[in-house]
């Protein structure tokens, strides 16, 4: 059936005008929305302040709730650890023996390495931590991969700084408020990390896939260099991420690359450490692409 010619609320002029102006307001709403959206696509840095304030307001909510869930989590996993404790104890003792031997070996290698570096007069700055905070939330309702950490501009965090955890690379800061910041995770589709294969040192490009995994492509085309269980670490190329930070572990091979899982699972890491960019000059450069890929 053809629709009626118009929505007439009756004979009242007032009601008719009300309906009409309401309709105009909705059209205006769509236009304003398109304008704002265009601005966030083409000039995302325009919103840096607003987004920072929004983060400051919302992060404490997630943060306090997060404390509750970690406590509950701890209770459950704590109870789980008592279950089957004797067998776990045996396993851990065996592991400890192996690890102790490996630590002694590693120490010897470290010593040798330092001597060799001293001989070569290589100067290396250890990237110092700016701040460390908890991961309090993530964009679980979106296909972009972001996490919110509980440190911000007040702690010295700035947009473009790399974020890592003890387990490996987490990502880089893309929004920063006074007390909280948003981190672009390595598994986000727009995050491209220059890495190299730990075994062999072949350069590899790591791109997030948006579903929690990372796509690895060797820079040089040829034979697929990956094996299951391979680990890639940051190469330091580009100057943003410090070299030698573990990024991902290969879980599946495809024809010319591999699919990997991030080493630092944002759901498991307890502390995220924000660092200075490896080369300070990279910060200014990093702000531009970081802003574009927001």
């Amino acid at each position, binding site marked *: 059936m053809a629709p009626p010619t118009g*929505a007439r609320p009756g004979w009242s002029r007032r009601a008719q005008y009300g309906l009409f102006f309401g309709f105009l307001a*909705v059209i205006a709403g*769509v236009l304003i929305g398109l304008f*704002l*959206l265009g601005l966030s696509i083409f000039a995302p840095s325009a919103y840096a302040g607003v987004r920072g304030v929004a*983060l400051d307001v919302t992060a404490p909510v997630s943060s306090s709730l997060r404390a509750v869930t970690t406590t509950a989590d701890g209770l459950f996993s704590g109870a789980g650890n008592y279950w089957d404790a004797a067998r776990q104890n045996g396993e851990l003792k065996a592991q400890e023996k192996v690890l102790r031997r490996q630590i002694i070996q590693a120490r010897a290698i470290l010593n040798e390495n330092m001597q060799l570096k001293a001989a070569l007069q290589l100067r290396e700055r250890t990237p110092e931590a700016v701040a460390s905070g908890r991961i309090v939330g993530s964009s679980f309702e*979106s*296909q972009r991969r972001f996490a919110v950490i509980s440190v911000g501009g007040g702690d010295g965090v700035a947009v473009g700084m790399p974020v890592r955890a003890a387990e490996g690379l987490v990502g880089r800061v893309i929004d920063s408020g006074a007390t909280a910041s948003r981190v672009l995770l390595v598994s986000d*589709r727009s995050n491209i990390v220059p890495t190299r294969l730990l075994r062999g040192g072949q350069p590899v490009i790591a791109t997030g896939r948006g579903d*929690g995994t990372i796509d690895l492509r060797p820079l040089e085309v040829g034979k697929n260099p990956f094996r299951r269980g391979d680990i890639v670490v940051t190469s330091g190329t580009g100057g943003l991420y410090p070299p030698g930070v573990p990024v991902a572990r290969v879980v599946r091979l495809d024809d010319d690359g591999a699919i990997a899982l991030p080493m630092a699972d944002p759901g498991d890491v307890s502390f995220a450490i924000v660092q200075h960019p490896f080369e300070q000059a990279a910060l200014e450069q990093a702000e531009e692409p970081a802003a574009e890929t927001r």
Partner: protein
Amino acid sequence: MVRAALGTGAALGRGPRRLARYWPAASVAAASTLALLPIVTGLGWGPDFGFLLLVAWRLLRSDAIPSWCAAPLGLFNDLVTGAPIGLSVTAWTAAMLLLDLAARRTMWRDYWIEWLLAALLLFMAQLLRWHVDALMGAPYEFHLIWSPWIIAVLAFPLFAFAASAIDRWRLGR
């Protein structure tokens, strides 16, 4: 009406709550803040809570939330969830317009038609979001939007129930 008469509660002095007119919009804003739950996951699966409740309200009563209210509510949602600013403003107001048109076209309404309309709108919102993300440098694969869409469609009855429960409560029925 009949059930209310059979109820044991006092029949006198019942009426709309204070600020009854503002509860629907406030509930949509509250649903948006569900995205602040401290869930840290490797992949995105959650629905757009605010949008689900907004569509549920709009399908329940056309006058509960004025259509223009979708724009400020969408802006609030964008700020809270960290979505590109303007995305929800556009998607939510466009959804209100589409539902206005759908209300003129549909000859009758039942629960299945409402669910179908909601599923279509949720898919359009996901599609818009996929395009915008691709424009912003994150062209993830299209199949990633299916599972959140299915979760959102299955969650819709829950939000429709919430909307009707809040409606009954705010009107003091």
